[in-house]
């Protein structure tokens, strides 16, 4: 009798997993969607960029933004470890600490980035880029949205190579014309 009950429970659980697993897979995939990033390296110097490097820079910058948005959304500085270093990481870590303290959060909806590579060091150990980012910014106090805006921001970005990826070392907003 006990065996029969156990079998039924197991069967029910297996069926439930089979039904809900694809749904949760889709959700995970949706969360993992990367922001659109394009790279223009026409005016880059003094070192020319290799094709593989241009792909990796584009990919890693997209991952950096994805993790930054998640880190700020979830107040999780540990998410910054993957794609940030130096002052960029310090700044964001500090901001997350302030978010926790005040219960105020900044939420970004990332509508994409147009990167212009402007400097690639002769030894290949640093790259500077200008990012034209299109973002929707929502400031929330608790659950209440207190400010919302659509902005085009120009970032000056310094990236340096890590063991297997490029890391954002410095990320600064420069004044630019409004949308």
């Amino acid at each position, binding site marked *: 009798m006990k065996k029969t009950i156990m079998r039924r429970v197991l069967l029910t659980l297996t069926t439930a997993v089979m039904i809900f697993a694809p749904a949760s897979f889709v959700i995970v995939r949706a969360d993992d969607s990367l922001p659109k990033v394009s790279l223009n390296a026409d005016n880059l110097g003094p070192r020319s960029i290799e094709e593989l490097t241009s792909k990796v820079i584009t990919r890693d910058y997209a991952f950096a933004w994805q993790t930054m948005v998640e880190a700020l959304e979830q107040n999780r500085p540990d998410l910054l470890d993957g794609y940030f270093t130096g002052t960029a990481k310090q700044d964001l870590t500090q*901001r997350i600490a302030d978010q926790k303290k*005040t219960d*105020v959060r900044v939420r970004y909806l990332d509508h994409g980035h147009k990167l212009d590579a402007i*400097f690639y060091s002769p030894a290949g150990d640093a790259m500077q880029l*200008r990012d034209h980012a299109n973002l929707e910014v929502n*400031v929330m106090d608790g659950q209440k949205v207190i400010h919302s805006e659509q902005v085009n921001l120009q970032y000056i970005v310094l990236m340096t190579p890590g063991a297997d990826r490029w890391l954002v070392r410095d990320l600064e*907003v*420069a004044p630019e014309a409004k949308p």
Partner: protein
Amino acid sequence: MRTFFPSLLVWIVTTIAVFAAEVHPPSQMSAGVSFSMPSSGGGQGTLYLIGPAHLSKRQVNLGTDIEVDGDEVERVGRYTVILCTDQCSASEFYVHPAGPDRLSLLVHPSRVPVSNPNAISAVAVVWDVYHNLELSPETVKFTVNPDEHTSLSEARTTNNGIAWIRLTSAAKSGVVKLQASVGKVSEIRVVQQVASDACNLRIRASSASKKITVETDPVRDCSGNFVPDGTVVSFTMTDSAGKTTVDVPIKRGVAKVEMPAHGRARITAASGVVTGNELDMGGGE
């Protein structure tokens, strides 16, 4: 009567919107400098200040100047100020770097062969005291000191905070100091210039009791610098037993090896792409 109440509602909403508390920050300012922002309205409100590395929330008295400490605006970039009463109003300002105060100097490589054109690269990144990239053009002076008495300088203007230069290594091996300076700030890196590949490799040999001892003359590059110890010299001996190759690192400027002799032997030496003279042992050189 039907239109009176909606109109009244619109008037009330418009009036509230018109008289909503506002704060007026300066449009731009320098990093780390305290300032005040005049505010309008009356009573109390909540002020939010959001910057690249800062987020604060505090109660403020409306209609007065709101003070912002310098340590709240140390990082450059865009800051958003939000003032909330019943409604919220937002404004923004930019913080600019405080002026050049720090230099990051990247020099590559740390060891370089002599007389190598454009082999050394130096990249200087200019920061302010708060480690903000100094985006306005600054003149960086690169100075090379090949020895105690000589100094060569060249100036470069920064573009987006970065200046760079390429240098040819000197003909003489040794330490070279490379300095970058902007204003009163400077950074120094040291590059070790080492001898290039061996040049005119010469060997000599002597035989005793079925052994041949082969030794190079002091191994130098084409500029006369000693090739560093550890550089490998390959000795190859061809005799009746066949061909034998022995790799020997240079020690104290020379490479030396003992090889068994089987009658007449031909000996050669090579280091990198350079081959030395050929010796014929057993029948004389």
